């Protein structure tokens, strides 16, 4: 297709965490984004979660900044309450018809104040809270929703007209019709998420009949502080706190009779988390988890599992529960199950069903409209080597729509899909995005502050409690205030015009708005004053709604007094505000990729295809890494051929320079401007770094006769022999978890179980009569990999479980290997004579990580893998900007996952590389050189490594601390530490905060101190 036909825009379908990540990446990389969501607001399932594993982070806390960023990005158009109707065209140039359902509220006029919902007389259950709470017929999905716009539920509304009467903004439009939009885009990303398995189908567990049997997503709301019980776990039948809670795993997963054959990948971890959080909420709660295999396969998940058992005392019962019955009087529940061959019964007060993940209900519809293929289980079909591509070119997929997966992998894929979507239209990057133009900034230097105060009624939200007119009159008496006024809605469009007028009319050089929270509205007002020629930082807000009128509703006098105080504080700070400039940093649009395995190769190639110069450094003589050593993939795809193809493409691409047999010796600089020296002497200037140094297979010297008997080998060594037809025998024994899930290496290596299935199936393929035994602790073939486990079982592979502490013993007798294992089920020793003993040994980090980490100022885990900026939402980033992470360097994972991460890292990198200059934060730390004595106490307080002790250029004797504004994030931690007062934080200067403290406490200052 000719470049001229391509469209520099992308449509993202589904506004959960996946869609938001894709949208943000693309919008930050020079593409216009249309984010289509079927709900009236974005956020998806993650917005419903209370906490997230394995860090127990509050889901809303970590997600809200992304929600707000997505809602506010001027190159992301949110099309919520909408569905895809028709898709025409081809990769690079699609025309999508979108049907947007009526909100019956003018989304531009609605300020989200909520007066309408307070008065609406129609109650119905709230979907967001899984129907455990009530909402009105006019509603927002949840309090933090983006966009914060109310919508009328047409099914429930009786049309009484009260909401329109209540709405002071006149936003209610009963006659609003469905809109049909036609949107032109170059690529499409699908991230519609998943549905939960309907537990009613599993009748033996009593869901829907027994009141105290709840689904895991309901339990998530039950745990939440914003849920029905405000964070105290209660049982629905009678409001008692349940003493014993049973979690039943695999409801609708690993179950072909009723539900799905595959494993849902996330339930083990979320149940563990729920049990831990429930325990944290009430110390007397005793959770038990009934499971088949504990699939804690992710990064540091097994440590979480250990803590759950040892620290929290959560009981784990390895058994599939047969049935749940209810005591009609107490509503307690009795579980029937078999443990270690014995039938058992136990009574619980509450049961949580860990429901599995299903493809979303509209999957088939989407696939029909968009013409891409679904797999046998109804998810979007992908392949190992194209994990984010659907069967139709130009349409990509991320998140749980392609397979059940957790949030970090979803976020990585979302970035990966964004990279692929961007590559398709890289030639037209930047053609459809807009940059806001502002008038030239007026200088306010040396001027006496002239402050304008705008006090908001917020309809009746503020004015109904606080006497706004009194606050306005009071504001007029404050020093330097030259204008004060009351507005019905300060955020409405007409008030923005009014603010601009008043700035001109009264020559205002500071603006204070007293209304709602700066977290949502500060950028809007900052934008307004910029349009009037004022620097954005000459703005201050007083929160007299969320933190005053709403929380002191019954004390109007005290609330009015507080509002005055808050205005006085804001004015006091405002007097001392200074214009700040966001520093610009030039960007060198070249990338350094360290590590030439499949991850590094994929990253390099994708960046090169987008037109960026890439330097690919590999310490070995050839590219390829671990992947060719796999020889087989369970899906039948050929890893060796794939790597060969990649290698060929890389040598043909003139944007890529490959350096083999060398390593990085020194890396200096910061985002946009790195300088790297290789061991071989070459110097490279680049703007970003991708770390893809991979990992290695553990060599279990001294364990199980490894290294002593030539027929004892690791999984990779065995596959090598198998591929050469050198491993011929009648009996094979595999031992799992060699060097994993042990004291020094507590975590799971993720890939070995599936690797064992691959090898076992290959043996059976070559010789169906061969005897294969797998000795294991938990089989962790998560997701669709469960099928290979099933297949191996059905082909006669024998699985024997041993207890964690009862490792098998291996002896050599008369040249033959003999393995003894205590079978967990019978408690008896089993003796196995074998020709080959294959050790599924763990994945270990590369030692290079230790050398690279200090060069790039990035952390590593105690095991030696790189530690990302945030385990859940920033899996590919570091706190240090411009440095990214992908593949096994992050932790053990499969080829498809590594490729998704490699692409994800590309997307993260292009958010930098696609820009000529980067705008640094305006609110940064600043050093007063005269006061700094270079003590360096501040240096370790900086998590972003933005501070450094250097020699003073003017005085060789003296030392100084230097702030690298390219790295500073503006938290102010260093400022709070500095013993000599040399450090200060722009926008939050000590003097500014002092002014607020003094104003709050009505401390009368001598007049002359007031001046700047």
């Amino acid at each position, binding site marked *: 297709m000719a470049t001229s036909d391509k469209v520099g825009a992308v449509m993202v379908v589904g506004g959960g965490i996946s869609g938001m990540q894709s949208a943000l990446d693309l919008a930050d990389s020079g593409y216009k984004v249309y984010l289509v969501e079927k709900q009236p607001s974005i956020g998806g399932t993650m917005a419903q979660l209370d906490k997230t594993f394995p860090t127990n982070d509050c889901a809303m806390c970590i997600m809200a900044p992304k929600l707000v960023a997505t809602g506010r990005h001027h190159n992301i158009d949110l099309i919520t309450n909408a569905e895809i109707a028709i898709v025409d065209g081809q990769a690079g140039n699609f025309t999508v018809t979108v049907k947007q359902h009526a909100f019956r509220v003018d989304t531009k006029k609605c300020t989200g104040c909520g007066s309408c919902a307070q008065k609406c007389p129609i109650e119905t259950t709230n979907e967001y809270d899984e129907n455990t709470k009530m909402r009105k017929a006019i509603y927002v999905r949840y309090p933090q929703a983006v966009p914060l716009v109310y919508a009328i539920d047409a099914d429930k509304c009786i049309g009484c007209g009260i909401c329109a009467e209540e709405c002071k903004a006149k936003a209610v439009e009963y006659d609003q019709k469905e809109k049909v939009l036609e949107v032109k885009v170059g690529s499409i990303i699908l991230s519609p998420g998943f549905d939960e398995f309907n537990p009613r189908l599993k009748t033996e567990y009593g869901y829907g009949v027994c009141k105290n049997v709840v689904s895991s997503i309901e339990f998530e709301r039950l745990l939440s502080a914003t849920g029905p019980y405000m964070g105290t776990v209660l049982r629905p039948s009678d409001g008692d706190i349940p003493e014993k809670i049973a979690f039943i795993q695999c409801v609708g997963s690993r179950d072909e009779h009723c539900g799905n054959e595959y494993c849902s990948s996330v339930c083990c971890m979320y149940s563990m988390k729920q049990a831990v959080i429930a325990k944290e909420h009430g110390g007397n709660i005793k959770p038990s988890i009934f499971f088949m295999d504990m699939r804690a396969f992710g990064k540091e998940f097994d440590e979480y599992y250990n803590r759950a058992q040892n620290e929290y005392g959560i009981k784990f019962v390895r058994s599939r529960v047969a049935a749940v019955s209810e005591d009609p009087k107490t509503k307690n529940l009795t579980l029937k199950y078999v443990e270690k061959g014995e039938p058992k019964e136990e009574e619980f007060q509450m049961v949580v069903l860990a429901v599995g993940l299903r493809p979303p209900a509209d999957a088939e519809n989407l696939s029909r409209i968009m013409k891409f293929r679904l797999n046998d289980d109804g998810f979007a079909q992908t392949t190992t080597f194209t994990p984010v591509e659907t069967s139709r070119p130009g349409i990509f997929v991320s998140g749980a729509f392609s397979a059940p997966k957790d949030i970090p992998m979803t976020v990585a894929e979302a970035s990966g899909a964004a990279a692929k979507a961007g590559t398709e239209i890289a030639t037209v990057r930047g053609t459809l995005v807009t940059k806001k133009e502002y008038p030239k900034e007026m200088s306010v230097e040396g001027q006496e502050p002239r402050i304008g105060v705008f006090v908001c009624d917020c309809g009746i939200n503020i004015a109904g409690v606080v006497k706004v007119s009194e606050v306005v009159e009071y504001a007029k008496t404050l020093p330097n205030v030259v204008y004060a006024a009351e507005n019905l809605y300060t955020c409405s469009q007409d008030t923005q015009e009014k603010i601009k007028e008043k700035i001109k009319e009264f020559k205002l050089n500071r603006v204070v708005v007293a209304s709602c929270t700066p977290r949502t509205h500060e950028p809007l007002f900052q934008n307004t004053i910029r349009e009037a020629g004022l620097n954005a930082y000459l703005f201050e807000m007083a929160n007299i709604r969320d933190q005053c009128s709403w929380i002191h509703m019954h004390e109007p006098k005290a609330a009015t007094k507080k509002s005055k105080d808050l205005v006085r504080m804001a004015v006091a700070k405002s007097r001392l505000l200074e214009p700040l400039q966001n520093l610009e940093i030039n960007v060198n649009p070249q990338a350094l990729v360290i590590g030439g395995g499949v991850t590094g190769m994929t990253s390099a190639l994708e960046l090169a295809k987008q037109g960026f110069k890439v330097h690919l450094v590999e310490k070995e003589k050839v590219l390829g890494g671990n992947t060719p050593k796999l020889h087989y993939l369970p899906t039948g795809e050929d890893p060796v051929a794939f790597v060969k193809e990649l290698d060929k493409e890389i040598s043909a691409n003139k944007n890529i320079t490959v350096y083999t047999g060398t390593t990085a010796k020194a890396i200096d600089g910061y985002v946009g401007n790195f300088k790297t020296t290789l061991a071989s002497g070459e110097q490279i200037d680049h703007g970003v770094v991708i770390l893809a140094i991979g990992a290695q297979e553990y060599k279990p010297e001294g364990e199980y006769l490894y290294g002593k008997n030539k027929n004892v080998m690791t999984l990779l060594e065995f596959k090598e022999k198998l591929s050469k037809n050198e491993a011929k025998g009648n009996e094979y024994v595999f031992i799992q978890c060699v060097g994993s899930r042990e004291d020094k290496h507590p975590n799971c290596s993720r890939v070995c179980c599936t690797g064992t299935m691959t090898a076992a199936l290959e043996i059976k393929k070559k010789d169906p009569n061969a005897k294969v035994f797998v000795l294991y602790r938990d089989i962790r073939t998560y997701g669709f990999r469960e099928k290979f486990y099933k297949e191996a079982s059905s082909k006669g592979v024998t699985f024997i479980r041993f207890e964690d502490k009862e490792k098998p013993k291996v002896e050599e007798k008369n040249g033959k290997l003999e393995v003894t294992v205590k079978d967990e089920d019978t408690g008896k020793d089993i003796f196995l004579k074998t020709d080959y003993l294959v050790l599924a040994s763990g994945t270990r980090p590369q030692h290079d990580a230790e050398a690279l980490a200090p060069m790039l100022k990035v952390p590593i885990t105690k095991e030696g893998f790189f530690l990302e900026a945030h385990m859940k939402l920033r899996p590919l980033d570091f706190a240090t900007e411009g440095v990214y992470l992908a593949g096994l360097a992050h932790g053990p994972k499969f080829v498809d996952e590594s490729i998704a991460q490699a692409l994800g890292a590309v997307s993260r990198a292009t958010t930098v590389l696609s820009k000529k200059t980067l705008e640094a934060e305006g609110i940064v730390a600043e050093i007063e050189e005269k006061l700094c004595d270079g003590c360096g106490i501040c240096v370790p307080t900086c998590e972003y490594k933005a501070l450094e002790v250097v020699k003073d250029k003017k005085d060789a004797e003296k030392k100084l601390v230097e702030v690298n504004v390219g790295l500073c994030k503006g938290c102010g931690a260093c*400022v709070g530490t500095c013993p000599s007062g040399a450090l200060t934080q722009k926008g939050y200067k000590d003097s500014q905060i002092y002014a607020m403290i*003094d104003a709050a406490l009505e401390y009368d200052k001598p007049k002359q101190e007031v001046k700047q």
Partner: protein
Amino acid sequence: MSSEAQPQTTAHATGVKEPDPKILVFCCNWCSYAGADLAGVSRLQMPPYFRTIRVMCSARVDPEFVLRAFQRGADGVLVAGCHPADCHYIGGNYRTRRRIALLKMLIQQFGFDPDRLRLEWVSAGEGEKFQKTIIEFTNTIKELGPSPMARGDE
């Protein structure tokens, strides 16, 4: 047993009008301030005697801010930050914790009850905890009475 949401405004009923306590609250932008906002959105009622100053991170709270507040007559200072490990700036709040512990010792030497300074973790989802914290802290300060600075025994 503690009651979560009884607005403690009955002091006036006794007839003796005590001066309203002056409480200063430092909230970090990302968690506690958001939590306080959520309390507002959820209309959770609480005593109106606190004034909030927003800082980017609780680690920005310079010991001098706290001392200044007490010197200027604050009866209580509450510092609210993200839960450990939730910090938007990675590890800022760990420093806050150490700093507040030290400050408590310091204000005690100046004759202030250490309970007049409090550190609390409030996440963006914990509107109710913010409310509870404010109610409890206001009660604590009311019990302690006006600050020694205000009483003039400087």
